């Protein structure tokens, strides 16, 4: 028998809403990348418009957590689910913001002729998406081992971002680099920076999952795990 079934039902509802928010942030990233790849300004504008829904959910879930903490005085796993969840809310909202920044690049690049996505940027997009997917899957399943794998992936993301910047510098140094080409390159570097940040957020989400499952914070390596 669950002596706090009402509270635990509220916690389940909180998790459902958090997963819904995660779904919106994940969709924003996928659509922003597709819009970037296809130079689809309509899809980019849709990503920008849909960010308000993610922001709204952040406010709603913040209030939800505050209410549960004040009224239910949760402890142990219940407490960790709320505290870990609050950390995720912040990271998911920022995933939405960074996806929006990628989408904005599409609008800025709209007047330029289409060109293929640089290989390292494409790989960065693929890896970051994989990281976010795994981080969210780890949270959903309470899988700390998968969450740890996500944390380990983060270093490779930074390296890829450096490669994108190196490619851009190589491009700019070429005598044939036109103003249009320079403009495109700048926006690609900005998009890569946003993707790298999404990778950071995915790692944060994975850390929150480890905190929820094991009660240890591995942030900044402050606790061994």
């Amino acid at each position: 028998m669950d002596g706090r079934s009402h509270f635990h039902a509220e916690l389940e509802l909180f998790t459902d809403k958090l997963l819904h928010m995660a779904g919106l942030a994940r969709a924003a990233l996928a659509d922003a990348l597709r819009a970037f790849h296809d130079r689809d300004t309509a899809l980019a504008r849709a990503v920008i418009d849909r960010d308000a829904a993610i922001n709204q959910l952040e406010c709603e879930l913040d209030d939800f957590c505050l209410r549960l903490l004040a009224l239910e005085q949760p402890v142990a796993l219940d407490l960790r689910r709320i505290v870990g969840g609050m950390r995720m809310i912040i990271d998911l909202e920022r995933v939405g913001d960074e996806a929006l920044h990628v989408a904005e690049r599409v609008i800025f690049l709209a007047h330029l002729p289409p060109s293929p996505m640089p290989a390292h940027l494409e790989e960065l997009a693929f890896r970051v998406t994989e990281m976010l997917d795994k981080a969210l899957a780890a949270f959903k399943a309470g899988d700390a081992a998968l969450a740890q794998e996500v944390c380990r992936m983060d270093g490779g993301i930074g390296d890829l971002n450096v490669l994108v910047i190196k490619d851009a510098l190589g491009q700019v140094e070429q005598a044939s680099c036109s103003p249009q080409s320079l403009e495109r390159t700048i926006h690609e570097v900005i998009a890569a920076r946003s993707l790298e940040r999404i990778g950071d957020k995915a790692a944060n989400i994975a850390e929150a999952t480890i905190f929820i499952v094991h009660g240890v914070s591995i942030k900044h390596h402050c606790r061994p795990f």
Partner: protein
Amino acid sequence: MAHKIKMAARNLDFYYGSFKALHDITLDIQENRVTALIGPSGCGKSTFLRCLNRMNDLIPGTRVEGELTLDGGNIHAPDVDVVELRRRVGMVFQKPNPFPKTVFENVAYGLRVNGVRDNAFIAQQVEKSLRDAALFDEVKDRLHDSALGLSGGQQQRLCIARALAVAPDVVLMDEPASALDPIATQKIEELVHELKKRFTIIIVTHSMQQAARVSDMTAFFYMGKLIETDNTETIFTRPSNKQTEDYITGRFG
């Protein structure tokens, strides 16, 4: 930081007749710290508490096996003076139980039955104990009025003052705030924080939030067994045992 062990149970079993109420309890009670005993009704926490000053001796047919020590000495050793043990290990009960005497005489009682005759010393100790129990300022003009005229919260702090007057080492508290309103409860909890500087405190409580607020160590009992003991912070943030987690999060069944 390592804390000195004030009391210790080693493989303690306790029987009410043929019913075994405590099973193989091994638990250290650290000096100048608050240890909370939690668990559902009938789990053995109050029985264990009453073992610590041999209050269970008063119940016919009870029996203890294993060892319980105070400062390393076995409290069941044949030469132990039970009255002296209960002076050193005082007790505060769930319901305030002042004697039908004046406020002053309630606190002086323990000293008088322990043979103290020096009235100046008694008066000094009464005031000190009432101050220690954070009650003096509220009753200083009513010291010679009946204790039964005090509020429930004041009566409970009077009982704490009465327990402190005989200079115990350890104070056992059996749900000391369960009959009190939230303000009186808050005063008792604040008092516990102050008292642990000079006394070792063991508190039985049904309020897990109270255990979390007042104690340094928490021990979870279930069906006469000690399931888990650890720092209170650890118990309430990441307990090791699934039964502890289920109990404190209300998933018990």
